[in-house]
């Protein structure tokens, strides 16, 4: 029926308002929905991409607003292959919360999960977190790092493609062994 060879679950976390939903919509639909509230009834979005002539299906899960009062269910993290932790480069508090998010990730996500740190909203001029600060944080915690703009479609494609490629590599490696 469906012609894909790999299916990966990717979940997004991070404070409310950092642009998680915008990243997903930009990637899956090519849209930037400004000022939208919570999306009712949308659980996860799907996009199939080509990596080395193979079809890779990414199932991208959003928080459903449960991050607002720090009430994300543990089951959200289960069986995720990749985890994108997002902060807003123009909002210091969203960066300051990263250690809290990491604690939650370590507790509930698989130890093998691919972790990516994303500083979003680089289109904004009131930057508060310099790139190197994000980079250093990512390095310290063994994560990939990327800065993006969902609004200007900058690095969004790259972010998800990188994840798809890496997950496929891991998956192939496991298959071969």
């Amino acid at each position, binding site marked *: 029926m469906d012609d894909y060879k790999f299916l990966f679950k990717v979940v997004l976390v991070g404070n409310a308002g950092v642009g998680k939903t915008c990243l997903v919509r930009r990637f899956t639909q090519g849209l930037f929905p400004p000022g939208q509230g919570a999306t009712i009834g949308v*659980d996860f979005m799907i996009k199939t991409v080509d990596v080395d002539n193979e079809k890779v299906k990414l199932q991208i899960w959003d928080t459903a607003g449960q991050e607002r009062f720090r009430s994300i269910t543990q089951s959200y993290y*289960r069986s995720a292959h990749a985890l994108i932790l997002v902060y807003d480069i123009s909002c210091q*508090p969203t960066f300051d919360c990263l250690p809290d998010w990491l604690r939650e990730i370590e507790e509930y996500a698989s130890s093998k999960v691919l972790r990516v740190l994303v500083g979003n909203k680089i289109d904004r001029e009131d930057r508060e977190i310099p790139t190197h600060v994000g980079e250093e944080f990512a390095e310290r915690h063994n994560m990939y790092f990327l800065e993006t703009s969902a609004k200007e479609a900058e690095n969004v494609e790259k972010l998800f493609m990188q994840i798809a490629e890496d997950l496929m590599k891991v998956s192939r490696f496991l298959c071969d062994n």
Partner: protein
Amino acid sequence: MEYELPTEFDIIIIGTGVIESIISAAASRIGKRVLHIDSNNYYGGLWASFNLDAIHKLSANTEVLDPPTDLINPDETTFALGNDFFSLKNFKTDWHIPKAETQPENENVEEKNETESEEKPEKPITQDSLIKDGRKFNIDLAPKLQFARGEFVELLISSNIARYSEYRSVSRVLTWLNGQLETVPCSRSDVFANNKVTVIEKRMLMKLFMALDSGDQEYLNYDNKTFRAFLTDKKLTPSLIHYVLYAISMSTDETLCLQGIQNTKRFLDSLGRFGKTPFLFSMYGSGEITQAFCRLSAVFGGIYALSQPLSSLIFDNENNFKGLICGKQRISAEFLVMGAEKAPPEFIKSPPRSFIARAVFITDRSIMSSEKEHLTLLLYPPEGGKNSCVIIELGTLTGTCPKDLYLVHLISQQVASPEDDFKHCVENLFSKFEDDKKPKILWSCFFSIPDSNALDLKTGVPGNVVLCPGPDLDLDYDDAVKKAKAIFSDLYPDTEFLPRAPDPEDIIIEGDTEDRNDEDEVVLKPEENTDKVAESETEAKSDNDQEVPKSENEHEE
């Protein structure tokens, strides 16, 4: 990140137990503005799962907060939230192994990545080593199994909630017979493969199964008689009576015939859908179930807030619920639904009279060792004045305990105390010594859950307030679904209960790539295009060919 909660809702739900969560999902699903709120910092209430660290910190204290009075009008009254009737009782944990290794040689492994801590076979298990792996435990307060064709599984599928959790099938059903563990023959192939059952017994058992399946109504003559009497009249041998009475129908000597027949049919009907037995277990523990419903509620706009400083409920002078006080906020809604354990004591007319006795053990091997890891249900019959016990043994493939260890749950209707009620099971199944063949208990936890299911939770409760009972003694969730559905229909008559949530795309969530042996992993999807379980099930299916159309097997790609 201090956000204020919105202050106007259609319905507020306090507590994240199973029934509350199902109602929350159902209300959000039809577009109601739902606030689902809990004073706990975890989901699930009395149905939750905890890791090893968190379960040690479980305390039964119910804190009463004084509400700010300026939020309450002069003609309103308030009731403080929370009562002590339904909190866990007799809670007790114990270690049965040394704290640390005696030789200090493993000090240098301290830095090792905790995720990769492969246990060397000879390395003794210590408190410290278990605590280090503590996050890999998911210890249920109220462990449940689901009948493969029960109401709950049908609801998961019809509402599309199945995608939020993963399941494994129970791979064997055991019972305690003549002083030892025996495998209960469930399906036709089991019956024939069982070398403890004689050829004549095999025929008897198949005849009984087929008679029940074909709608034979001979049992109608047993109106006021017991199921045991029926089975005895069928001339079954004592061991067959044991299998059918205590295991397959989960009955007692007193169970009436009709009930026993219904239970047996229910068991047989759920065979052959997934796995070798009629039962499923939700991976990472039963606590995931409430979260699945909460996720659906959130996806449809429900607002979620744990760890909230809930202080009191506000009522007008006609005793209608108006709202509640949470921190410094007053939040209003038309309806209030809450777990009985959250209710003001004034709403509870009678304290619980019966309790669920519970024990949880971490052990070093299975109660019945085998090549592959089993997910075991042991139905321990009533014995010497003790009630029957349900025992569920979980291995690492269920995501509830680390490698090479087992988590064993014991459940029974309490007679004296959990420790006393399970004493005989513990003596028969486990050992205190290292080199015995029986598993050794490394850690134990005992507690009692007050059973609020038989109580009147309506009298004296204001009209727009509903109290939900906590965990029951049932093996499964079917009764909880019925209760949630009834409450929902009372609140919102003539609306659909959890209609199918739209599919982002027709997808199958594969398990992660970890080294599981897959044959018990289960994907729940609607019947017409699935029942696609691993190949070993083809065998199980043909056991049941009266029930399952043959074509179902042809969907395997």
